């Protein structure tokens, strides 16, 4: 079913949601912004408009920029989507397609967009969870593409191995985090959470700000935020709606 164990026999709807969130680990989506074979300067810009959803209109703002290759980000006000990266951007003449790296969930892939430049408008379909909504966007200005946050190096006090553990209902988890710096590059991490199975979590971002460190694994929807205190990492693991505080120490 999944490779990150979490099972329960209780069947309340909220718990069902929690379980679904915990059990659903969207496949890692490669951020493979493709080179445009045909540069379409007309597509470059900020595009704003509405997606027609039955009984509702959803505001959509897309920023698209071309600098050797396409990059972009999306805003969906009131859906907590601000600056979500566009992935797999493809253009062919006046046709454009991409996915928005947001709004994924149990069994639900990232929304996909297929659009066509018609005169001054970008017209197309927004596909989410198997539903299709028509949209029409107007160019409202130059692009304001948001760059996804990048990993940083970590201070020496954070480098090396940390271990600790926490309990989720039914199963204790053992956590190992190894942080490593690299010359002229951001830090990397090996992050293992072991319960009934051993899970090597693919880490896509490590950031350190002062005494705080954040480790994120978007593929599993799990992140860790810790604070260095007296040689220990006091932190919280976040997964879906679950937050568990625990302490990691240097292995003896």
């Amino acid at each position, binding site marked *: 079913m999944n490779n990150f164990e979490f099972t329960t026999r209780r069947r309340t709807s909220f718990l069902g949601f929690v379980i679904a969130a915990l059990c659903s680990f969207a496949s890692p989506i490669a951020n493979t912004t493709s080179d445009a074979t045909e540069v379409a300067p007309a597509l470059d810009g900020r595009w704003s408009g509405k997606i027609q959803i039955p009984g509702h209109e959803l*505001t959509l703002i897309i920023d698209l920029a071309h600098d050797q290759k396409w990059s972009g980000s999306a*805003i969906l006000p*009131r859906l*907590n*989507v*601000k*600056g979500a990266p566009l992935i797999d951007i493809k253009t062919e003449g006046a046709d454009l397609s991409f996915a928005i790296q947001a709004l994924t969930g149990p069994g639900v892939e990232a929304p996909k967009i297929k659009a066509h430049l018609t005169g001054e408008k970008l017209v197309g379909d927004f596909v989410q969870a198997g539903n299709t909504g028509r949209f029409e966007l107007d160019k409202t200005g130059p692009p304001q593409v948001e760059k996804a946050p990048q990993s940083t190096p970590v201070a020496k006090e954070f480098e090396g191995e940390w271990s600790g553990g926490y309990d989720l209902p039914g199963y204790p988890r053992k956590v190992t985090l190894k942080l490593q710096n690299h010359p002229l590059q951001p830090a990397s991490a090996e992050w293992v959470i072991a319960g009934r199975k051993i899970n090597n979590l693919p880490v896509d971002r490590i950031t350190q700000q*002062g*005494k705080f460190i954040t480790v994120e694994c978007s593929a599993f929807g799990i992140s860790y935020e810790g604070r260095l205190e007296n040689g220990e990492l006091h932190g919280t693991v*976040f997964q879906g709606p679950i937050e568990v505080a625990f302490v990691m120490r240097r292995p003896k």
Partner: protein
Amino acid sequence: MKLSIFACLIFCAIVISADAQSMFRGNPAHTGVFSGPAPREFHGVKWKFPTGNRIVGSPVIEGQVIYFGSDDGNIYALDSQSGRQVWKTKTRGPVPTTPAIANGTLYVGSYDGNFYALDSKTGELKWKFATGGERRFEAKGLHGMQPKNQTIADPFDIFLSSPVVVDNAVYFGSGDGNIYRLDTKSGALNWKFKTGDVVHASPAFADNTVFVGSWDSYFYAIDANSGKEKWHFHGGEDALIHNQVGFQSSPAVVDGVVYTGCRDAQLYALDAANGKEKWKFDNQLSWVITSPAVHNGKVYFATSDSALYHVADAATGKSLVKEDGRAYMFSSPAVVNDTVFIGVTNGTLAARDAATGKVLWEFQTDASKENKDWVLTADRRFNAPLLFFDNWKEGPLVAQDRQLSVGSIFSSPLIASGTVYFGSTDGFLYAID
């Protein structure tokens, strides 16, 4: 020598002017008075900046940068001229509050229960402090919602407490019932003062005293150094449906008088030295959520259900102006010279003449103009029969959510260099002039 004194005075004036807009209500005393030009006519939207969710708190400015929080969990810094994003920093909860900026640091709370100090230039985290956790005011059968034996979180508990920064200390309230004083440099706890319920009003500071009300029905004056109570004042209570209780309004302190609204439908003027009531203005069961602005001997405030815009004499509480505002007003009025700006929950920002209270011009959000589902009547009042037709279970909560769909303006306007900045529940921060 004279020249250097003159230069010094100019420098001080610039510093005061800059500081004067870098926290909620413009200054530690929360007077709600701003300097500089203000548009007496509406010219247009200079820019609007989209976020991922509602904007309920208010923007502040320092230098050329606008700072604000959004319910999408981010704190934003924007270039005030272009509206372009300078940085954003994510918290783990909505940010329906107003940041304070001092000495290169931005201070703000989040619904994730943490209070953050960020580098105002980069958004980088300097420190954060974990409170006992956020929550909304709640009560059984709140506002008459059914079932009456069920505890219901208040959907109109819309803001979090905004911080006030003075010298090396930052003060704010929390849903855990405490008022906190932290060291601005380290985030270390200096003291905390326990009240009996949620504190989402924003403390004002004057004469080394912190003034703030709690949802426990009391208003407190606390010694800023020791954290000890100087006095308290008891507002109204409502044991039946808990509708007419609690301080959600934030106080203004001017010339030894504390002015504060209350959910018991009063605007109070209290002696700042001892908490004795000087006068009260009865709003006949209509909440006063707005934080009053006080300028030139007048108090400016507005009400919720009765949707009235008031100007009262600061010395006596006598009504000077009463105007129809059409819909609930939670936004706090901003006074700039002869103009007052206030947001309305029907998606309108109104500019009023300070003397007469008459509307000079109005800006209406697109969502308000669209008026989906006829949330508003044709004259922009809330269409109550179509909204609150069901008092059971989630009915009132759904109705409140629909109210906010018109781009309600809870945010208190910031006016800088002739431009008015405010947020809306449509998710946009607007700059209009």
